[in-house]
């Protein structure tokens, strides 16, 4: 039975305690990491839907977006895994009233679902080659929080000054709510940003496996990683320009803007 609390349609109140909220953004999802990670968790942990945030206040309803030929409706849905003490949120980025949106999410998570820590997942475009391991860069909203994460391999602290992403805004609002916040930014080879990057998804799932003691098996992603590696090897054979550009990246050299554009377009055409 559906109930309504504030701006939420509630399906089930989960029994969680000192839980973690993991947020994945569907829009601007580089490497499709956010969506894939949340979908995997929902499916493998057999999460149950908890609530939908009424999108009317926060999203633009001035037309319809398409993705893979399918009409998309802006949505923000929570799921829960009581067994693993996890609350998940898969959401589009709000189009307006960002602060109100983020506050509503955190109020619901902390007041009704007993969340005390927030994680976000986003892809970070990087000048790395697809055959290189993916580092997960991290941002914390409390100064000593990084010490907890030093024991994990492949994690590195971020340095950045520039325009903020919605995840950084969420961490800042979480700090005002006295909630710990951690953003996970797995690297995505920039030329795979508009496609799926199974290596980044796998790196993120492996981290979450360790962090939350989850029974995930991201092994099947290895096969997809290999498939992309093989396809790109084929593209290198066929296209000498792509071969040269990927060669430069593998050697740790930086590509100029035009070279980046060329490589991204060629890879996208070949893999999509």
């Amino acid at each position, binding site marked *: 039975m559906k109930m309504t609390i504030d701006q939420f349609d509630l399906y089930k109140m989960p029994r969680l305690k000192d839980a973690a909220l993991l947020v994945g953004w569907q829009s601007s999802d580089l490497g499709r990491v956010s969506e894939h990670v949340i979908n995997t968790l929902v499916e493998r942990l057999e999460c149950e839907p908890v609530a939908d945030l009424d999108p009317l206040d926060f999203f633009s309803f001035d037309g319809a977006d398409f993705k893979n030929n399918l009409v998309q409706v802006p949505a923000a849905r929570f799921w829960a895994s009581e067994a693993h003490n996890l609350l998940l949120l898969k959401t589009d980025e709000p189009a*307006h*009233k*960002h*602060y*109100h949106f983020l506050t509503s999410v955190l109020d619901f998570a902390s007041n009704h679902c007993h969340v005390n820590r927030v994680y976000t997942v986003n892809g*970070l*475009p990087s000048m790395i080659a697809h055959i290189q391991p993916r580092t997960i860069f*991290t*941002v*914390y*909203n*409390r*100064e000593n*929080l*990084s010490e907890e994460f030093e024991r994990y391999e492949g994690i590195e*602290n*971020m*340095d*950045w*000054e*520039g*325009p*903020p*992403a919605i*995840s*950084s*805004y969420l*961490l*800042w609002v979480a*700090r005002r709510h006295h909630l710990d*916040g951690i953003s996970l*930014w797995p690297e995505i080879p920039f030329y795979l940003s508009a496609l799926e990057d199974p290596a980044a998804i796998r790196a993120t799932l492996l981290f979450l496996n360790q962090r939350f003691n989850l029974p995930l098996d991201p092994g099947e992603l290895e096969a997809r990683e290999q498939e992309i590696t093989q396809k790109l090897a084929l593209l290198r054979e066929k296209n000498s320009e792509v071969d040269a550009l990927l060669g430069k990246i593998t050697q740790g050299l930086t590509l100029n803007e035009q070279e980046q554009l060329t490589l991204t377009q060629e890879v996208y055409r070949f893999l999509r």
Partner: protein
Amino acid sequence: MGIVLHKSLQLQRPRLICSWPGIGNIGILAVNSLINQTGAELFAEIEPWDYFEPRKVKVRNGFLEELVFPASNFYHKKLGEEDLVFFAGDEQPHGDGRMYARGEVALKVANLVLDTVEQYGCRRVYTSGACVSAVHHEMKPRVVAVASSASLLTELKSVPNLVLMSEVSEGSGDGVITGMNGLLLAAAKQRGLEAACLMGEIPDWLSRTPFPYPRAAGSVVEAFAHILGFEADFELLNRQAEEVDRIINGLYQQFPSDVKELYDQRKSLSQPGPISREEADWMKEHLDDFLKTLSEEQDGGNEDDDRPV
């Protein structure tokens, strides 16, 4: 949500002088200059998150140190026996990504500003902005005024180099002040406060470039100095104006010769004013492509192109 007071003040019927960025940033340059020159001190600010999006994040060694929002600050200065309140907004509040504020969010901010000064008994409000005009950039920009009442207009007419809108708009005195610098006037008048907007003239073609126009800000500061009765220092604004003049002259030298010839005729006009339909069409025909190329070159290194984190 609302106002954060940094200092508790006892003010006596202060006048408010405020501005937000707009064309040539004329008003905000002038108000910031007044704040600096009078030594006015910050005493309150608007909590930004309900009205603005953050501009910048600072992350050091993984720690999110700071999220930077546009500031909306109130400053106070006692000048002689008179209390003055200045308000300077870094950005116009907008709910839909437009440069100029409008709608519910804009009105809320206007009312917050007025609520704050009305509690001290404020009876008069000045805003400042730009008046797009068929003026030549080598001429001294005038200050163009509109006000909430005929008596205030009469008072303003005594200010040197200040003209009323009706004197420069083919006698009509009709028009629109877009964004917060206009909206605040309307909100003030609705509350029964006296209100006026002092606008520095900017040549029509320059209003379509991304440059500030400190020369006109200087004229506005001069007008306020007369109104408030203090001696203004123009050294900094003049220095800024010289720097911008170098760019403007560089562009002007690139004008097609027929355009330049027509444009230079403005120097001999005794009463330049807001642009007429004919002039707007003329400018569109001759300068649009030129300015478009310029704008594209300016956008080349924009920080906002970076992927946000």
